[in-house]
C-alpha cells in the first residue's frame, strides 16, 4: 500500500509540475535572476493552500506533523552549498528527474552529480555530524517559537504572498 501510494502521488505530482513548466531549467534560473517568477508563484500558492489544510487536519488530530530539526550549522552551510549547486544545474532533486523525463538529456548529469554528492555525504557522515548538529534547537514550528495561533502565521503568510503576487503581476515577471 505504501509503495502504491507513493507511485500514484508521484505521478500526479510530476504531471502537475510538468504542466506548469516549473521543472524547466530556464524557469528555475530565471526566478533567481528576477526575470520570471513562475516557480515562486507556484510554491507560495502550494504552501498557502497546503498549510491551511495541514493545520486544520493536525488540529483535528487526524494527522501527525513530520518536522525537521532546526539545526543552524547544517541548514546554513547546506543551504549555501545548495544555492550554489542549484544555480549551476538549474535543477533541484525533484525537478532534475522530471526534466530528464521531458527529454532534457543534460539533466542526467545533474542526476548523476546528485547521486555522487549523496555518496560523498554518506561516506563522510561521521565527520559532518558535528557541523550538522551545531546550534541544533530541535523540532519547532514558527507558531510555537512565537507562541501564537498557527492561523496568525498563515494570515501573515497569505498577506505576504498576495503582496508578492500583486508585485510580480504588475511588473509582468
Amino acid at each position, binding site marked *: 500500500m*505504501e*509503495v502504491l*501510494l*507513493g*507511485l500514484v502521488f508521484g505521478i*500526479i*505530482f*510530476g*504531471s502537475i*509540475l*510538468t504542466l*506548469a*513548466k*516549473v521543472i*524547466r*531549467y530556464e524557469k528555475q534560473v530565471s526566478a*533567481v535572476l528576477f526575470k520570471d517568477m513562475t516557480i515562486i508563484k507556484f510554491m507560495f500558492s502550494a*504552501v*498557502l*493552500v*497546503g498549510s491551511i489544510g*495541514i493545520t486544520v*487536519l493536525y488540529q483535528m488530530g487526524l*494527522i*501527525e*506533523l513530520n*518536522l525537521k*530539526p532546526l*539545526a543552524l550549522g547544517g*541548514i546554513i552551510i*547546506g*543551504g549555501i552549498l*545548495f*544555492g550554489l*549547486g*542549484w*544555480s*549551476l544545474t538549474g*535543477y*533541484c*532533486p*525533484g525537478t532534475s528527474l522530471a526534466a530528464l*523525463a*521531458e527529454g532534457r538529456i*543534460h539533466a542526467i*548529469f*545533474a*542526476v548523476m*552529480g*546528485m*547521486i555522487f*554528492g*549523496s*555518496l560523498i555525504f*554518506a561516506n563522510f557522515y561521521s565527520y*559532518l555530524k558535528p557541523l550538522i548538529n551545531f546550534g541544533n534547537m530541535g*523540532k519547532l*514550528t*514558527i507558531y510555537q517559537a512565537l507562541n501564537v495561533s498557527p492561523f496568525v*502565521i498563515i494570515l501573515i503568510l497569505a498577506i505576504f504572498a498576495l503582496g508578492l503576487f500583486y508585485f510580480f503581476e504588475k511588473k509582468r515577471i
Partner: protein
Amino acid sequence: MIMKEKSLNPYVGGALIGLLAIALAYLSSILIGETKFFGTSTTFAKMSGMIQNLFFSSSSNEYFNRITLRIDWQFMFVIGIFLGSLITSLITGSFKIELVPPIFKERFGDNFLLRATLAFIGGIFVALGARLADGCPSGHGLSGMMQLSLSSLLAVIVFFTSAIIFANLIYRR
C-alpha cells in the same frame, strides 16, 4: 510576436499541489498509519547507497543504515515523478530532446560538454547541501513550509538567498 507555449497557470498548479499534499497527509495517515509529506532528496542518497553496495558490501555505513536502503514510499514517489512527467510531456507534446538549455546557451554557448560538466558539479553541491540541510525545495520548501516549520523557513530563505547571489554571479554579464 513570439508564440507562447500553453501552460498550466502557476497559481492553479500550486494550489493543486497544496490540495495534493493535504490529500496525501490524510490518506497516508488512514491507509498506512503514518503521515507522509512530499520529499525527494533522501531517495538520491538511497540510490547512491544501492550503487555503492553493488561494488562494496558496505553494510557498516552509518548514514545508509540510518536512512535504510529499502524501496519505501518516497522512492516510489520519485519514480512516479519521472513517469508522470514522461507521460504528461508525451501527451501534451512538450517532450523535447534538448542538449543545452536556452539561458545556458545565451551565456556559455552551445557546448554540451560544458553544460554536462557544470550540471554534474552543480548536482554534487545540490546533494551535499540538501543532505546537510536535511531537505530540498520539496521537503523544506513545500512540505516543511506547509507545516509552518521553523527549520524549513530558515532553509528556504538560505536556499534562495544563496541561489540569487550565485546565479547573478554566474549568469549576469
